[in-house]
């Protein structure tokens, strides 16, 4: 059973009073719960949030499944989201993503690689088309101006860093 940590609970409680209605706090609480649950939102997370926030669970699940940044399946330590829309698509975002997936050992999109390090998704426009092709790791600032070697090197660096600690 998933339980929010001490500060997590305090954070959610403060969010509930921050906006005009408590429903508005669902998104940030889901972000917090997702971070504390290892990067994905599952059934227990939603039922726990529903109790804590006193909002019908169906409404929270609606929000959790509507937005793309809440993962419905477990993700690796580094969830690499490669942008593949329009400009990035033209500049080779899709080929880059496939090459990096092979390098990282993930067969399908959304799978966690054997060593639990990587999960890949092809996401829609991230709003940085001048630096195409580019990607975002988890919810950190963007990694931009990539090409094939930089992409594969990035996978190797991340794997090394991931094993480090």
């Amino acid at each position: 059973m998933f339980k929010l940590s001490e500060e997590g609970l305090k954070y959610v409680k403060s969010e509930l009073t921050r906006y005009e209605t408590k429903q508005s706090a669902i998104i940030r609480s889901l972000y917090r719960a997702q971070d504390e649950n290892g990067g994905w939102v599952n059934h227990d997370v939603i039922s726990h949030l529903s109790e804590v926030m006193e909002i019908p669970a169906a409404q929270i699940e609606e929000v959790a499944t509507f937005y793309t940044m809440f993962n419905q399946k477990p993700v690796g330590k580094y969830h690499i989201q490669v942008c593949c829309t329009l400009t990035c698509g033209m500049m080779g975002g899709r080929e880059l993503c496939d090459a990096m997936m092979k390098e990282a050992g993930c067969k399908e999109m959304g799978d966690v690689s054997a060593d639990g390090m990587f999960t890949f998704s092809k996401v829609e426009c991230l709003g940085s088309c001048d630096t195409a092709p580019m990607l975002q790791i988890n919810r950190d600032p963007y990694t931009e101006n990539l090409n094939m070697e930089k992409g594969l090197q990035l996978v190797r660096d991340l794997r090394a860093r991931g094993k480090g600690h």
Partner: protein
Amino acid sequence: MHSSTTNVPMVKIQVNGQEVEVKEGSTIIEAFYQNKIDIAHYCWHPGLSVAGVCRLCMVEIEGNPRLQIACNTTVTPGMRVSNVSEKVKDAVKWGLDFHLINHPLDCPICDQAGECGLQDQYMKYGRNDSKMGEAKVKKHKVVDLGPRVVLDSERCILCSRCVRFCDEVPKTSELGIFNRGDRAEVGTFDGKPLTNKYSTNVVDICPVGALTSRDFRFRQRVWFLKDKETICTGCSTGCNVKAYYNKEGVFRVKPVYNAAVNGHWMCDDGRDIYKFVNRENRLIDAKLVSGGKTEHMQPMELAKRLGATLKGQGASVALVLTGSHSVEEYEAIVSYFKNDVGTTQIYHWINNPDTIDSFDGILIRGDKNPNTKGLIEVLAKNGVSTQWKSLTDSIGTGAVKTVVVAGPENQALFPDMKVKISELSKAAKLVWMTAGKNSELESLTGDVALLPLKTYVEKPGTFVNHAGLRQKTQPVTSIVPGALSLVEAVQLFRGEELVAKPVQEGEKPNEIGKGRVHNEFTLTRGVW
């Protein structure tokens, strides 16, 4: 919405060239609905909020280049609206095509076939063969939403009626639409199934076969069923319902719109009330057990015999009545027992005294009898005021020898059935008139007479609901031919012959429900 009594100014508009008058501030689709003009629609429902998502109720408004949706455009005076122009027809044809491209070919196994919104409106507005060659979107089939409702997401057209219903009527918000785009699916959060007391209403308002009732699942095809209006005798609200039946009995009930009583809805308990009517739960033949000898005979024969023994017994006879019969029956039996039998020992068996006044704020009332008010009215008119205790005492002292019970029609609503049977069987002679089969009654020894009664679907009658509203019902069908109604039983007690009464004015079959605006599902088959 309609039932606001304040006189709201009326607005004159022209619909398809026909002059129409509508309350101010209402939408165009209400103008169509109130004047019974056909318009294609799925997500709008007279009892729910406007969603405007199915995009079928397109109308062309003069002076407006783009087609507008009728469900969200309020009426302005002198507006000229048309939904039969070529542009609208083509838009609706394409709108329907969009609904159908990912719809599974389930009609053979879908319970809604025959009253399905897609079938009906495709036949009325579509009739083009789809050129969709691509693979359809696959979703979950046979999803268990709760004890009473089964979901099939592939058939769902995401009109959000069920979600809005759960948010607005029972206000329990169990249903939600999860995921996004054409991967969206209706569902509950597993762990919180659809268990509110009005869940089966989502099956009625679902225009397609996505939500089907578990109780009616695969039991009968709807075109083998006939339907007739009656009321639900589950509690004292008296919701107007339509019973669906054929020669094998009654299969299901659906609510009928009646602004004064139940609006568009009915509760889940009412959905099971029809079950006690069918043959397998009914007392079929009359039985007389006296002096160790049991005789089975025709109910009419037993009634005549009882009439002979009861006549003129005076105060040694007691009558027990329940709130589940009609006013005419009460008048007949009470006057018979007062004048011919000459007793004033007439008692009112209240089945759940403690919860009798409870009310869940929507439709369910604690008083589980349809006609308690009617019985009280008749007893008062005949100056009868008795306490239940005096009956049990006088049985004890032997003052009362025979007890005649005009028993409960629906024994499921009488939890204290066993207690009363043991109490009343202490009397020397027991006459128990009921509609339902009951093993205790059959196993009673001593001087007992069992007389099968008709249920509310087999006899005409007037029922007075909690608010004093008198509702006349028409017999739906006959299930146990031999059974008697109390009126017939009293005629036989008096020794008269049963003669078919000519149909009075106002009781002709299609006159009963004349005033009511029908629920949009029962006006015509399926979504109109």
